[in-house]
């Protein structure tokens, strides 16, 4: 499995979810466990560029795939991804726990072409619960990042 561009050879229990593999075996704890049953979106990562829930995927099913987590977003010089900066600028979180999942999902939302309007963003971001309820700020952040990513 490639994670954030790096190859990992992991000897895992077949039962280990991709989420637990990332957190407990690779040490990438940016990806969060919020429900472990596909109901909250906190564990969202990109697999081969598509946003998915790492809690509902067995790690063993991802052999040979490219996984991107929140730790893999910043560029080599450590500068933030436009989405990360937009989340800061728009205060798109409070406790910050759902944030990595929101950010990964937001990047997927834009690359899928589902960030055309505020209503689209709300609908296509509804798989990511935010209990602090920063939703309007999350929508604002995605609009900002979308425009910056288009320019880039």
């Amino acid at each position, binding site marked *: 499995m490639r994670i954030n561009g790096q190859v990992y050879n992991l000897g895992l229990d*077949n039962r280990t979810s991709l989420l637990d593999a990332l957190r407990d075996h690779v040490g990438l704890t940016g990806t969060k466990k919020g429900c472990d049953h*596909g109901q909250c979106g906190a564990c969202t990562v990109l697999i081969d560029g598509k946003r998915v829930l790492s809690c*509902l*995927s067995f790690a063993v099913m991802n052999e040979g795939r490219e996984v991107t987590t929140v730790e893999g977003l910043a560029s080599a010089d450590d500068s933030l991804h436009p989405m990360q900066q937009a989340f800061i600028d728009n205060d798109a979180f409070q406790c910050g726990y759902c944030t990595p999942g929101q950010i990964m999902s937001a990047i997927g939302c834009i690359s899928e072409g589902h960030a055309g309007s505020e209503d689209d963003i709300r609908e296509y971001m*509804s798989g*990511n619960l935010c209990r602090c309820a920063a939703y309007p700020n999350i929508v604002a952040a995605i609009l900002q990042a979308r425009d910056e990513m288009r320019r880039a």
Partner: protein
Amino acid sequence: MRPFVFERPTNISAAVALVSSFADGRAPTQADVQFIAGGTNLADYMKLGVARPRRLVDLNDLSEPALRQIRISDGTIRFGALVRMGEAADRGDVKRHCPLLAESLKFAASAQIRNMASLAGNVLQRTRCEYFRETSWPCNKRVPGSGCAAMEGLNRQHAVLGTSDACIATYHGDFAQALIALDAVVDVEGRHGTRQIRFAKLHQLPGDTPDVETDLAADEVITAINVPFSEWSRRSRYLKIRDRESYAFALASAAVALDMDGDTVRQARIALGGVATVPWRARLAEEALVGKRLDQSAAETAADAAFAEAKPRRHNEFKVPLGKRTLVRALIETRDMKV
């Protein structure tokens, strides 16, 4: 979670062989083996201890290209079984030819789940009945003969159509409502070869055996879903009513396609979600509309027909009026579509 052997075959026949190779020659059960594609339903139920397969056969490396393709030709949309819900929902030609199909996918689950879940896996998803999900409750579907905790329990989410004395669990899927409305056919491959199943025959009413959910044997895998369409299926839509705006199961939904001759209904296709134990074709409602001018009153008559046999329980009585109004609204909105 019970430990399991993991297999990753590279073609369909290898997959079928893997689920047919049991030493004692008996037919495999779901405790022996299950297929996995997206995993969004199965992984959840394995974590909950509801599904405890000893072997898991991962279909994601199957090499047959048709499994991942959507082909449109001769009045049929053929969805490969491994096409993901999100991809199908976003396809411009699917939206154009049959908005109902795309909408039923778009309003299901979340974007992440739609990126994971295969179309075949989606139609085979198991009920989300709270008493089914938790192994500490009696449940005839999970443990045949153990009883039904939902019958006299909290059954707001439960079905009012297609119920039995053994089970009132709702079939929560959305795409299946579109498929049953449009007379889809599924291609299946198993140890006895290939066959086709009419979608309407795929899911089984609970009856006395709610544990038997589909017509598929444990060694059979869906390879494709074929949906016939016509010029008139452009006039179709899926209306889903739920407690919140998104990412929730239907309290009631209506899949509607209308073949109109001016104001008059030539042919109607209607299926109902969130209210029945299986994907539910409302044929009585369809018949009530044929040859009629589709106005509010005709829509209400059809809705009454659709729910004539409804058997609500204590907490889901509201689903009868809600289901009817959902259908009426869907009919009127479909009638008024500009196509």
